[in-house]
């Protein structure tokens, strides 16, 4: 038998097809071996990122006795918090205490409240939490109900690794963002590229998160009297992957995150009621720096479905801000190397019981952002090019409210009428937190004595309408650099924010508003204040005349049709501009390629060009300026940016930055604000008045309509009527 098969094989080899077959099989086997063994090494060598086994000091085994002690404590605390929530309205403190006690002893209350994983883990004999491995023992797969009404069984870990919470980018369509070339990002007719976070409040826009993933900063705070204190900083603090770099493998055309990196997924930061943010700080080991996690048994025993507090451990950072007074995560900065807080807020519309009517009403984040497995929808509207797990799924007021949501008062019909033209947020977000960063100058850092670091100068922070945020027509889509797209349905031609409101500011008003910040800056930096004001208040002055011409052409030809899409409503947007270093070789009519900062250099020396110099040395930035990256994504990226092609001239020549200049963005960015919803909206006369908060002229209404809207005869009649009634 054996002899026969050998003979058959020999015969097969004799034929041409046989030889080709053998060659193909050999090639496939060799390819597979290379993919598993060689490619990851090659990948690390090429990108400069490193992977290694991830261990966490907080992951320790405990004894049965310790388990029970923690269980008792957790159970008591959970019951107490839940019971106190119920009895919170009780006026007498004593009665409240008695009621709370009774409730905590009530069997049905305990049944609904108690942490069920304590029992599961006790029975399973789990005495040490070892990250995803422990969770997956029971949860290797999970049942997911898709928006189409299907029920599917998915691999839990893969589901997490595919989610934006892990990858924080997507190489697929589903962005409500359009390039300045008129194409929808990653839609049909494009070459899909990985994109996910272009966030310009940060000196480290998303695509550069490699240069500031997990950083240790030497600070010299006043309180330490000359001693240095190590602090943690970097994008990794908010991302669930615990590796030494963002999931770089996920943005490449092939290859997967290595298994050692998969062990770094932080399940508990979303799923534990007892996650200790003091464990979230940067640690350094032989491979590099990365973010620590709470892998204590205590946190594991407190596992539940995520609630608002879980989400807000990270997301209050971008909504309320790090220094927002009700930011819980900011109360636990770290047992070691405590995290540095960012002083200005990205959106400044907090989601908290104090600031948001929905939170106060007991709603959960997941009520609106309803998860499908580990994929969480952001909604279909947006300007900011942030990746979305479930692009088609609507997250909107109308999902719950009717088309006639105002149910009280004589004006309810009129208020409902406004919905055709106004987003709900227009009236129901009356102000943002004062921490809101509007103008941030990264190029002129100032010394922050309290923290002992140099920080970028927020020359304007404001939560007021007209300064910190303003109203724009919005059809749900945005440009590549976060400008709301939309048009005035009454007079489309009269509205062109990209040549008007988003590029000019009133110099006199600015001079006045910026006075304190400018004084502070002139102490550290020598510069011509008048020229600075001119540059800031007319951002197009940075463009050559040809550039302005091209800009006008692009707006008329490419953007006008996009502005006219769908139904536009007047919508409030947080305003933001930042002065950063740009590489002028890649400049277009809407700006030039921004360069990142190295956090440690920036914070410690206050020398922004040295910080840029250091960051640009990062291997992956160097790769960006080479052909494979140009072909893979950068040409396409620049096309969206309004630039014909990606120039691979590396900005660092002989150790010096070449062709690098500080500039404001050519246009103010407009970022959606949707949280911090206030119950009582604006009153008629707040907008419908000659000096109202809404600039009808800037919204493109013709003059006679502006005059009309500012003095509505109906409104005057209403006022008279109400006066008559009160008389």
């Amino acid at each position: 038998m054996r002899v026969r098969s050998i003979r058959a094989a020999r015969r097969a080899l004799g034929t041409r097809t046989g030889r080709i077959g053998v060659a193909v099989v050999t090639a496939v086997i060799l390819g597979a071996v290379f993919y598993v063994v060689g490619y990851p090494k090659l990948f690390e060598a090429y990108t400069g990122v490193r992977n290694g086994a991830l261990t966490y000091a907080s992951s320790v085994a405990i004894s049965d006795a310790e388990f029970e002690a923690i269980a008792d404590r957790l159970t008591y605390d959970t019951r107490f918090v839940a019971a106190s929530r119920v009895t919170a309205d009780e006026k007498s403190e004593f009665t409240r205490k008695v009621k709370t006690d009774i409730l905590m002893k009530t069997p049905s209350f305990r049944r609904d409240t108690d942490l069920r994983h304590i029992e599961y883990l006790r029975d399973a004999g789990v005495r040490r939490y070892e990250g995803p491995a422990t969770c997956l023992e029971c949860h290797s797969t999970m049942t997911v109900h898709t928006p189409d009404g299907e029920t599917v069984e998915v691999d839990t870990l893969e589901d997490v690794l595919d989610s934006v919470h892990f990858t924080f980018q997507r190489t697929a369509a589903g962005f409500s963002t359009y390039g300045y070339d008129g194409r929808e990002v990653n839609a049909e007719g494009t070459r899909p590229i990985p994109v996910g976070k272009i966030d310009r409040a940060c000196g480290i826009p998303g695509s550069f998160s490699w240069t500031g993933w997990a950083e240790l900063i030497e600070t010299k705070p006043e309180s330490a009297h000359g001693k240095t204190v190590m602090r943690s900083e970097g994008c990794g603090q908010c991302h669930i992957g615990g590796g030494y770099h963002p999931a770089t493998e996920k943005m490449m055309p092939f290859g997967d995150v290595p298994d050692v990196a998969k062990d770094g997924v932080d399940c508990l930061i979303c799923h534990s009621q007892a996650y200790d943010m003091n464990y979230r700080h940067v640690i350094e080991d032989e491979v590099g720096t990365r973010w620590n996690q709470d892998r204590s048994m205590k946190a594991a025993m407190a596992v539940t479905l995520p609630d608002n507090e879980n989400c807000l451990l990270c997301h209050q950072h971008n909504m309320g801000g790090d220094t927002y007074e009700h930011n819980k995560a900011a109360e636990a900065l770290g047992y070691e190397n405590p995290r540095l807080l960012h002083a200005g807020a990205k959106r400044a519309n907090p989601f908290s019981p104090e600031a948001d009517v929905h939170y106060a009403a007991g709603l959960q984040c997941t009520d609106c952002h309803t998860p499908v497995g580990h994929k969480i929808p952001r909604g279909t509207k947006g300007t900011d090019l942030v990746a979305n797990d479930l692009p088609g799924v609507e997250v909107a007021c109308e999902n719950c409210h009717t088309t006639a949501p105002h149910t009280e008062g004589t004006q309810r019909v009129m208020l409902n009428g406004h919905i055709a033209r106004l987003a709900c947020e227009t009236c129901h977000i009356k102000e943002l937190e004062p921490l809101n960063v509007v103008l941030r100058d990264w190029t002129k850092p100032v010394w922050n004595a309290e923290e002992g670091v140099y920080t970028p100068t927020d020359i304007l922070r404001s939560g007021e309408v007209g300064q910190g945020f303003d109203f724009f027509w919005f059809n749900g889509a945005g440009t590549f650099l976060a400008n709301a797209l939309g048009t005035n349905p009454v007079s489309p031609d009269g509205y062109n924010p990209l040549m008007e409101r988003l590029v000019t500011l009133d110099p006199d008003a600015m001079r006045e508003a910026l006075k304190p910040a400018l004084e502070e800056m002139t102490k550290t930096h020598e510069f011509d204040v008048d020229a600075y004001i001119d540059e800031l208040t007319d951002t197009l002055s940075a463009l050559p005349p040809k550039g302005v011409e091209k800009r006008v052409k692009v707006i008329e030809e490419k953007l006008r049709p996009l502005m006219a899409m769908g139904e536009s409503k007047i919508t409030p947007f947080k305003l933001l501009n930042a002065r950063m270093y740009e590489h002028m070789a890649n400049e277009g009519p809407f700006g030039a390629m921004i360069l990142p900062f190295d956090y440690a250099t920036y914070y410690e020396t206050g020398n922004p060009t040295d910080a840029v110099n250091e960051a640009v040395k990062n291997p992956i930035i160097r790769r960006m300026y080479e052909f494979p990256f140009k072909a893979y994504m950068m040409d396409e990226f620049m096309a969206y940016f309004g630039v014909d092609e990606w120039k691979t001239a590396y900005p660092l020549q002989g150790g010096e930055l070449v062709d690098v200049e500080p500039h404001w963005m050519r246009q103010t960015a407009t970022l959606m604000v949707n949280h911090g919803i206030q119950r009582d909206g604006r009153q008629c006369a707040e907008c419908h008045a000659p000096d109202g908060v809404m600039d009808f002229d800037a919204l493109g209404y013709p003059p006679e309509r502006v005059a009309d809207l500012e003095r509505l005869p109906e409104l005057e009649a209403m006022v008279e009527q109400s006066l008559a009634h009160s008389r």
Partner: protein
Amino acid sequence: MSAKTPHAIRRPRRWAIAPCVAGAFALLAAAPALAEPAPECVRCHGMSTLGYQDRASGAVVSLHVDADAYSTSNHADLDCVACHKAQYGDYPHADAVRDEDLHCLDCHTDDERLARFKLDEVGESFARSVHVTRHGDAFTCFDCHDAHAFDIARDRDQVADVVLDSNAICLNCHQSTETVGMAALAPTALDVAHAWLPNASLHRRHVRCLDCHTPDDPAASHEILAAEDARRACVDCHTADSALLTKLYRHRVREERTRAGFINATVFNDAYIIGMTRNVALDRASVAAFVAALTLIAAHAAARWRATRKAGR
């Protein structure tokens, strides 16, 4: 009349129904002048979301008037105040305006120009409709017909569009979960009620609800029949002399019957209706071929029989 029902604001008395249609027809005689409703009204009533959630029914009541639709409707050259005569000077308007009683007959009594539309028949048949016998005065013609957009002259090239428009009126209530009192006919219930009907969704897209839910008599066009009285015999429509010819296709039969070859050519362009759509030439050819085949066989068999008999001998 109660002020609580959602449609109270534009509710006529029942006997005023026919003339409301009449009002529309009246304008057909003259070329409809393009006009827009008064700008001071459109300022608010032009807002597409102007409305409120009715406290009794929970339904959202729209107070929007589509100025574009109005300007091409049969009422286009009427001012708003030609019909709405109550006190509208206050903002927001006093609650009393909701009780304003609009009567189509106020404008159109004994109008000779409308005689050919037999509006008395419309009124009478409506009075017999299940809507009125079940809901009484609460049901008005405005529940189906929008006086602000009514356009009898609107020409529809495609039967499918006629069906869509007509059925949209019915489904507006019979498929809406918001409408109180219709809960029994909420979406699934509507499907359950038509479960007996093969290819129900296909039927819904290609014939009007009215084609089964009104009697055969053309004078009873507004007599909506309840489920138990409605047509259920497939063969009423699925036959050469289909009921559809006097209903959905009524206006097309005359013009198209003369066209070559096809009985019921009226639907030639739109649908194939089993039993109704027949091609005369094909049908005749098939019968002829059938007869010819049988004759041939018979002849052959006869010849064979004779041959065997001869051989046997």
